[in-house]
């Protein structure tokens, strides 16, 4: 998977779970402040990302991820370690 595909899939997951149109989701979007996520949705997002990419995210570390861009970085790092993310 390339990074732009990862970004697109993350935006799709966020859009579906938070019910926000994809075009309104930017890398700089804050899940709570910009996209209106409640804290239970932060947990649901983690679960949705884990399912989408077949990964496990550390609960505490993943809750420190506040923006879409940070999620791309965080998940990208896990996928890279698994050899699933290309340059």
């Amino acid at each position, binding site marked *: 998977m390339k990074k732009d595909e990862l970004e697109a899939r993350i935006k799709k997951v966020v859009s579906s*779970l938070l019910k926000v149109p994809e075009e309104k989701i930017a890398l700089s979007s804050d899940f709570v402040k910009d996209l209106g996520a*409640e*804290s*239970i949705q*932060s*947990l*649901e997002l*983690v*679960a*949705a990302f*884990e*399912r989408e990419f077949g990964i496990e995210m550390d*609960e*505490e570390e993943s*809750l420190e991820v506040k923006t879409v861009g940070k999620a791309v970085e965080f998940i990208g790092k896990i996928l890279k370690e698994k050899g699933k993310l290309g340059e």
Partner: protein
Amino acid sequence: MKEMDLIQNFKERAKKNFRRIVFPESRDERILMAVKELAKEKIVIPILVGEKEKIYQFSKDLKIDLSNIEIHEPKKSENLERYVLSYMKKREVEKGIAGQLVKKNLLFGAMMVKEGDADGIVAGAANPTAIILQVARTTIGLAADISLLSSFFIMVIPEFSGEKEKILIYADAAVNIDPDAQQLADIAISSGRTAKQLLGIEPKIALLSFSTKGSASHPLIEKVVQATKIAKEKDSSLFIDGEFQGDTALVPDVAKKKLKELGEVAGRADVLIFPDLNSGNICYKLTQYLAKAKAYGPILQGAAKPVSDLSRGASKDDIVDIASIVAVESI
């Protein structure tokens, strides 16, 4: 009731009822130590949530013997499907996402309580308050007629008006920043019920302000006046009164001077309801340090079943005490 007696009393009552209390933060050393002590002393039946292999390895490294402790592994649990379906009744999420979510230790532990497989949950040593509150609200839910989760402290004051080790309940000193009148009324009612359940007293609940029965006028006071009215109407079985200044609530001589009709609460209050988190939090800390009071809490209230939100800095002994309180709340 004396301070030592208070915690001892909770432990004795917990022992008699031997409740099932779930601890989802099984990767925390303090939790494992507390669980071991709770089991050894037969205070509660502690239940850990997590992967057995990892927990045993972790406890082996720490030299904590967890044999005979019940451990539930979410991924292998026969209850998982039931919990997933139950979660989906509350939240509109795909089954796959709900499944992934409920496999997480905190959610699984909360669902055990929700579904009646445990009597209460003790968490918060490794999870932020916002997450604990939201998980509790979403899974376990609120008590039938209560609109919000709130928190209370049990304050044990070394001496007050000649009385040794006076016990007071302070609420809300940790969770709700600026409750409206309806919410403040619910905090008062929850706190009264908590005091009854835990302390076995007929609580005298005072809603505090900087005015006593109209001695001053301001929108901030009006909120407390409204809250008092709502709370009295909503639960007439409780002794609730206000708005009172702190001295009117606590000191009989002041109450007699300031009020024409004393009622049941003025001068005798033992449950103090603060109008917002500024006042509640400031007062609990001032009482703790200036009066050398012992503060137990914050303990959550308002959920359909008992939930604790431990402070991140809680010690093993704090966790044992809180687990005993959660067990007594569930009786």
